[in-house]
């Protein structure tokens, strides 16, 4: 790897099991401060479990996970969120019966500075102008693309240092896919590091700085996104016929 800045998030030699079945084999991933890193892989490669490990939803059997130099192992999900990691979960997972406004504000659950939260809500509406007319609507009634916007706004509301995203483009129309990628870039340029899990390799490699390719629980390829994009092995495995989500 080239001279990347010091890592913000680092997984080293993580081994994860579901019962008898091993999901991760000596998994090591780093996300540099201020970078976008993406984790590519097909179905059942262990991508989503990697997200769950970072968020403390699944405990690894061995290995270390550090964020900004401090270990996350043993912390609960809410504690990890308070350290500055926000998430955009797979399939968005909005609170369907709460309003859009309530959903976005739920993102600020860990904060206690009411006035600044109100300002941030306004900022979200400039970042996601479409949501302005939808604020009092039930979140469950929005379209998939709009829900993705809410999920991203919700994640940003905690003023995270890092956002982890699980397949942010899944199930979206091409128009929204472009919009989401653009927004990820914007968010990143504002100083938030991003770790995203994707099946759609060509799209992810366009915006990422570094990329990892996960195959049945092992990292088989890693490096700067630019080089991976031209790597024939990635081409063969993913870019040729990227699987439907």
């Amino acid at each position, binding site marked *: 790897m080239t001279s990347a800045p010091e890592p913000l998030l680092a997984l080293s030699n993580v081994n994860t099991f579901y019962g008898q079945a091993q999901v991760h084999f000596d998994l090591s991933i780093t996300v540099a401060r201020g970078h976008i890193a993406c984790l590519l892989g097909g179905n059942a490669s262990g991508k989503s479990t990697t997200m769950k490990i970072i968020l403390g939803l699944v405990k690894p059997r061995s290995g270390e996970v550090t964020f900004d130099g401090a270990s996350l192992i043993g912390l609960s999900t809410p504690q990890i*969120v308070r350290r500055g990691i926000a998430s955009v979960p797979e399939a968005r997972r909005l609170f369907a019966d709460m309003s859009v406004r309530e959903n976005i504000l739920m993102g600020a659950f*860990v904060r206690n500075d009411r006035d600044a939260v109100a300002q941030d809500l306004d900022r979200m509406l400039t970042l996601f102008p479409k949501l302005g007319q939808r604020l009092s609507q039930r979140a469950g009634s929005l379209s998939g693309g709009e829900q993705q916007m809410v999920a991203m706004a919700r994640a940003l509301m905690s003023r995270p240092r890092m956002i982890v995203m699980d397949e942010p483009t899944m199930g979206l129309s091409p128009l929204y896919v472009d919009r989401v990628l653009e927004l990820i870039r914007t968010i990143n340029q504002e100083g938030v590091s991003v770790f995203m899990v994707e099946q759609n390799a060509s799209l992810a490699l366009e915006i990422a700085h570094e990329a990892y390719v996960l195959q049945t629980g092992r990292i088989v390829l890693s490096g700067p996104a630019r080089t991976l994009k031209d790597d024939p092995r990635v081409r063969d495995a993913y870019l040729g016929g990227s699987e439907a989500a």
Partner: protein
Amino acid sequence: MSSWLDYTINGLIVGNVYALVAVGLALIFGVSRLINFAQGSIYLVGAYIGWVAVVQLHTPLPLTIIVVAATAAVVGLILERFGLRPLQNSVRIAPLLATIGISFVLDQLVMLTFSPNPRALPSQLPDIRFQLGGGTIGPLDLLIAGVGITSALLLFVFLRYSKLGWAVRAASQDRDAAMQMGVDVNRVNQAVFGIAAALGGVSGMLVGMYYNQIDTAMSLQATLKGVVAEVVGGAGNVPGAVIGSLLLGLVESYGVAVFGTSYRNLFAFLLLVVVLVLRPNGLFASARQAPPEPLTGTFIAPSRPVRIPRWALAVAAAAFAILPLFPVSFYVLQTLINAWLLGMLALSLTLVAGTIGQVSLGHAALLAIGAYTSALLSLALSVPVGLAVIGGGLMSAALGTLLISPSFRLRGHYVSIATLAIGEIVSLVILNWESVTRGPIGISGIPPLSLFGYDLISPTSIYWFSLVVMVALALLQGRLLTSHLGRSFRAIRDDDIAARAYGLSLNRYKSLAFIFGGFAAGVSGGIAAHLYSYINHETFNTQQSILALTVVILGGLGNVVGAIVGSVALVGLPEVFRIAAEYRILIYGVVLLLLVRFRPQGLLGTI
């Protein structure tokens, strides 16, 4: 007959009381997808705390309410922290069973502390009634309405405007996503259990004052009514629970007006069954709601069952068979006869709950059907007792399956609710169908067991008879489980969607399981009727259903040998240690709790 307005007022007041219980259940279900069967016990505790405060400490009414709410809340917090939180990563059936165990323990503790005799709980309010339209209303009615409305408002404000309230709402919609927003789900659980317990406790106190009487039987009734109201309104739906409660109160009140007091509960449970069958998500759920919980795999604790060689089983059976040839006391034989009868019931339940995954909480109803059928056949139609017992088994198989069949499309905890309700309905029909069942008087003078014209009166002959019947049923069931049919049953338990995708008809296999299980339980009830010579609508009650469930879990769900071992253990050990009768139920509750916590797969392992 008083005016319809009176019945309406009474229905709404009673509905308010139910609402206090049901709202708590809805909050807990929302966050944990758990039906808290201990809710009625907290209501009971509330009533007795109220009694202590009013009668012994002479507290003024406002203080009484605060004391009851606070104490009940503390009980709720303890229950959550020590009863349920350790089970968070356990199999999904575990918390349900734990709340059942907790409810037994709490009820028995109250009974041991205050004695089972009813007590008066004066309301401390002046006994006057105001005219209102064509009806009357008293200060206590107003108090209940006031507490109901105030609680609803407080809850609304809490959920809408407080941070913790937002966390509760978010967690009940998507627990994992809420955690990823930084919500501490343990705190949310604490909050809902505390609130639910405070409301439930106050409700128990108000009911005690309303009828000026409290006793330990209140607990189960309250749980049942709360669950009915909550499910009618849509499980987990807080406003739905309020409306469901008022509706339930009105239905009951009008039902009583038309048919009489003994029909009150029958209407409640019929309402529940109708709603479960027609709109299992409740009256107010929109159609989009997904089924409450997909059942996949983890419902019962997976384990490798203990293998017992055939010769060992044969030796054990032979040893029990020749036992009466040795000089053993009548008392030992009597105890083992009880164990064999319970064993038949446990065989039935382990098949239904363990093998095919339908956790029945109303299994005693199958005993009752078998017992009444056999008793009436032999008494009214002079059918030989041996045939009458078989008739009882067949009737249980047929009627039991017919009654449960509308609930075949339900899953998980809903099956438990439906079976509980059907069990209550059977008991209430027996109580009210006087022309056939002789109602509350019961049936006496049931002829003793006989076979081919020979009366079986000596303990030894009864012992052998029940042992042979039980072993025969066990062999049959063991054969069944190793067959193709047994595999299909387990497939349905582990993943009903996958089973259906492979072409298994859920209705057919669930029917087969209940037919077989109904027969075994009905035979057990039939034999019991001829042994007791007297039965009534309370002979086979919910306590027996729960005892059978404890036996089955002790032995290992689905495990045939385990069912018998569990029966001998739970019937025999209290006798060996000479434990007084009033402590037994307490011990069964504690056994259930310990099993769920430390050995959910039971002694011999689930199959």
